């Protein structure tokens, strides 16, 4: 048994599965389900954040199915994530589940997970390259979907095409197959009938990574907003994130360097987690005259909650409506939809009032 459990990260799970493949392990990835959420919150301390409860849910489910290894990100900052691996391991041990969790990040050139699987050099790097290729393609598919969904004439067509593309991407095994798929994707999305005259709102999603990416946790917010006629931009892009981690000195609109610079009038420290990114992205949205920003975070998230007063200041300075959404295991779908609808109505009204036409 060489299975390894990987927590759900939305569509990026496909890329993670590919990299596990390259290591010679069989990935165990499951979409987040009510069962997993239940497994999670039953064993976790009450006031811990939602990602923790989901992680442990996934791991317990995997362990019950006989998976012996798991992998997760190792934090190294003031965020609670720093302790999550130890705490998760402890909970698993106490329940008598035999599972070892590997941590990623800050463990040297050859992290324990690589040491354990010890994949052949060539095979691993080739696989890793393909995984990267997949990751960038996922970004591309999503960007096309965000643009097309609010303008589609037949409701649900974009989602069908997106899912089809992602399924094929998951099945693609070699670099050539991925490239072939890449050449087809643009055509498939342009084949969708769209209403080109429709004036759509442009709203950005910023905040904490796992809530932004796990479609179960954010109640498929991208699809919900798309259905309401909103072009969404999800600001957690793994490609950008990796670039910021491995090449922190690069410059560019979304580089760490630039973000620190533009956030400086509001926030002069990195805080931890993605707090600085949330502020910087909101400022970028304000400059690019977006219609609004939705800030998503698990309820009680230390870094994201602490910057909320600052986010409000950015909102008033840039005349940019910000909707704050906290998520936990009790978040009701209907409640969220009502809030989103009210928010979007408000944005339409604002646009009418200001006579502001979107430049795209």
């Amino acid at each position: 048994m060489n299975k390894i459990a990987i927590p759900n990260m939305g569509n990026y799970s496909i890329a993670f599965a590919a990299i596990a493949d390259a290591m010679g392990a069989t990935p165990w990835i499951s979409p987040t389900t009510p069962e997993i959420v239940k497994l999670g919150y039953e064993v976790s301390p009450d006031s811990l954040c939602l990602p923790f409860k989901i992680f442990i849910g996934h791991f317990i489910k995997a362990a019950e199915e006989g998976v012996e290894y798991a992998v997760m990100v190792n934090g190294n900052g003031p965020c609670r994530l720093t302790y999550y691996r130890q705490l998760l391991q402890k909970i698993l041990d106490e329940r008598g589940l035999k599972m070892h969790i590997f941590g990623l990040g800050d463990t040297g050139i050859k992290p324990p997970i690589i040491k354990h699987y010890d994949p052949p050099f060539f095979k691993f790097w080739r696989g890793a390259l393909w995984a990267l290729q997949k990751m960038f393609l996922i970004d591309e598919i999503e960007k096309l979907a965000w643009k097309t969904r609010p303008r589609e004439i037949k409701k649900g067509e974009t989602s069908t095409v997106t899912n089809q593309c992602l399924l094929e991407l998951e099945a693609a095994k070699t670099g050539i197959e991925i490239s072939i798929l890449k050449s087809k994707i643009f055509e498939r999305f342009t084949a969708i009938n769209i209403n080109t005259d429709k004036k759509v709102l442009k709203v950005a999603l910023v905040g904490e990574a796992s809530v932004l990416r796990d479609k179960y946790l954010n109640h498929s917010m991208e699809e919900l907003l798309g259905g309401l006629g909103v072009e969404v931009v999800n600001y957690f892009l793994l490609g950008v994130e990796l670039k910021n981690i491995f090449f922190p000195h690069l410059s560019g609109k979304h580089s760490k360097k630039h973000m620190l610079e533009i956030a400086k009038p509001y926030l002069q420290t990195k805080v931890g987690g993605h707090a600085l990114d949330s502020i910087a992205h909101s400022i970028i949205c304000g400059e690019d005259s977006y219609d609004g920003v939705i800030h998503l975070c698990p309820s009680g998230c230390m870094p994201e909650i602490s910057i909320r007063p600052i986010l409000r200041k950015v909102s008033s300075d840039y005349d940019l409506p910000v909707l704050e959404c906290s998520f936990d295991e009790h978040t009701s779908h209907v409640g969220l939809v009502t809030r989103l609808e009210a928010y979007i109505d408000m944005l339409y009204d604002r646009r009418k009032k200001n006579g502001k036409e979107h430049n795209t």
Partner: protein
Amino acid sequence: MAQKMTIKKVGIPKSLYYFFYPDLWKTFFETLEIEVILSESTSRKTIELASSVAESENCLPIKLFDAHILELIDKVDVLFVPRIISTIKKHCSCPKLSVLPDVARILAPGKVITFEINENKIKLISSLQKFAQELGFSNSIAKKAANRAVNATKKHTEEKEQSKKTEASFFIVSHPYNLYDDYITGPVIKKLKKMNISYEIIEFKKEKRKKDAIRWDTCGEMNDNLFQLDPEKCKGVIQISSFNCGCDSVMLETSRSVLKEKSIPFIVLIIDEHSALAGVDTRLEAFIDSVRWKNEQNCNS
């Protein structure tokens, strides 16, 4: 130099960092001949103001900070809000403390003076000195103020150590900003006194410790103290935690397992702006009763 002329009154909110470093800020600014105005101690009024202005998902101490700042704004020239990154070397503080000046700047635009406390990079005494120089004071005055300020805290801690009672049966742990705020810990201590129970309150020494698993400064110290408890002498541990405290949510599990191994009874009192006095009383009474029964049973068997 321009700054030196304008600052006559500096306001320090009586929350968070005021309790982290007792006597330090007052001595520092008074040596620089700046009048220090403290906000009033937390009261029901502060709590009501806090719950109406502050971010609802924050913990109580951070909410109170906002209220203390608002109370001071009109009374002072500038507000002093340091950026706390780390108070002990190789450790870090709660991320909520590192954004304090940025948040305060929104409440009081143009009125905040700040400097960074980051023991990982620079010692507190040197950063204090640098801060005084930035305010426009000469090198020698800055040095004097920094030295005096740090000594004042040391003296405060030493005095407390000497006045410590030797025989104590219950141990109270919490973050300094909960512990020394009378409104938060007061009811617990009052109740213990009323029941004639001896207690000891945790002391924060801010000394360099061995590199361990816990990187949060105060949490690490609390944990160390719990490790050193003697099950023979200590009858029970009372932890006061604020609702939605991020650090505590992780650390409580660790504390619980440490104390379970030592078989010391443990109670967590969670407080927020709605905390009822009667609730605290009842829980404490029940806890102390159960500890007493446990001891009687042990004696009998």
